[in-house]
């Protein structure tokens, strides 16, 4: 891609990444969540791919590493769901505890980061999973189309 695209995306990408991570972190307080933030982050990856080419991106992030990350996210998610199995699968076992366990006052409030029980943790797990999964899809498809292009 041309220099303009590359320098613009170099400038933009940190903001996109940070915005994606912000959305993941604040999923239980503001609009957004793991899927949306992950999609934003992965769109940053897609921008990287468009600007710098798939081979350059592949040097930075190997496909099997992304695959592992995705599995880690999925395992963390299902692990959190299993965490409440003493009561029931998907039971929100962290409500009332010290990690994310505060219970907000009912009705409109200012929003406390440490609320939500397992929900913020699940948001993070899903966010990791979606980031890795969507990046992997984009990367694999780009690499494959590159290969077919070079063979012609």
């Amino acid at each position, binding site marked *: 891609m041309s220099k303009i695209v590359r320098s613009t995306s170099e400038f933009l990408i940190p903001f996109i990444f940070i915005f994606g991570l912000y959305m993941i972190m604040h999923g239980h*307080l*503001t*609009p957004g*969540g793991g*899927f*949306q933030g992950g*999609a934003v982050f992965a769109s940053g990856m897609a921008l990287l791919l468009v600007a710098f080419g798939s081979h350059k991106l592949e040097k930075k992030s190997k496909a099997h590493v992304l695959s592992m990350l995705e599995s880690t996210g999925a395992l963390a998610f299902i692990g959190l769901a299993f965490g409440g199995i003493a009561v029931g699968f998907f039971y929100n076992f962290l409500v009332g505890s010290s990690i994310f366990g505060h219970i*907000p006052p009912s*009705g*409109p*409030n*200012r*929003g406390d980061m440490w609320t939500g029980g397992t929900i913020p943790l699940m948001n993070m797990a899903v966010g990791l999973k*979606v980031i890795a999964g*969507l990046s992997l*899809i984009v990367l*694999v*498809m780009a690499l*494959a*189309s590159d290969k*077919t292009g070079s063979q012609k």
Partner: protein
Amino acid sequence: MTQGIFNIPFLAVAALIGIGLYIIVFDRNLIKLVIGITVLQAGVNLFLVSLGYRQHGGVPIYTNACHSNMVLPVPQALTLTSIVIGVAITAFMLSMIMIIYRHTGHIDAKKSRKLKG
């Protein structure tokens, strides 16, 4: 039936689904077929999310909320789920088409039919 005039979003849903089905049925290009399925998904998602709208309602989030009247949260969650499913299906079908193209050299549904009869 007097309320029918207010159901314009639902009529838009019918139109979107109709367009999606039209593309799926009449277009022989496999990529356009996937586009048709995406339009169909958009129609169904619009249906789901517009089911949950409550008049003069705000977002169902209590952080700094000023509305007492909130729209329904469940349809939004369902739509979110269905959008992610749509992304997954689209990616998967497009990569299948890429491999079909690699094998046969075209993406015409009429030509790529080894299996018939």
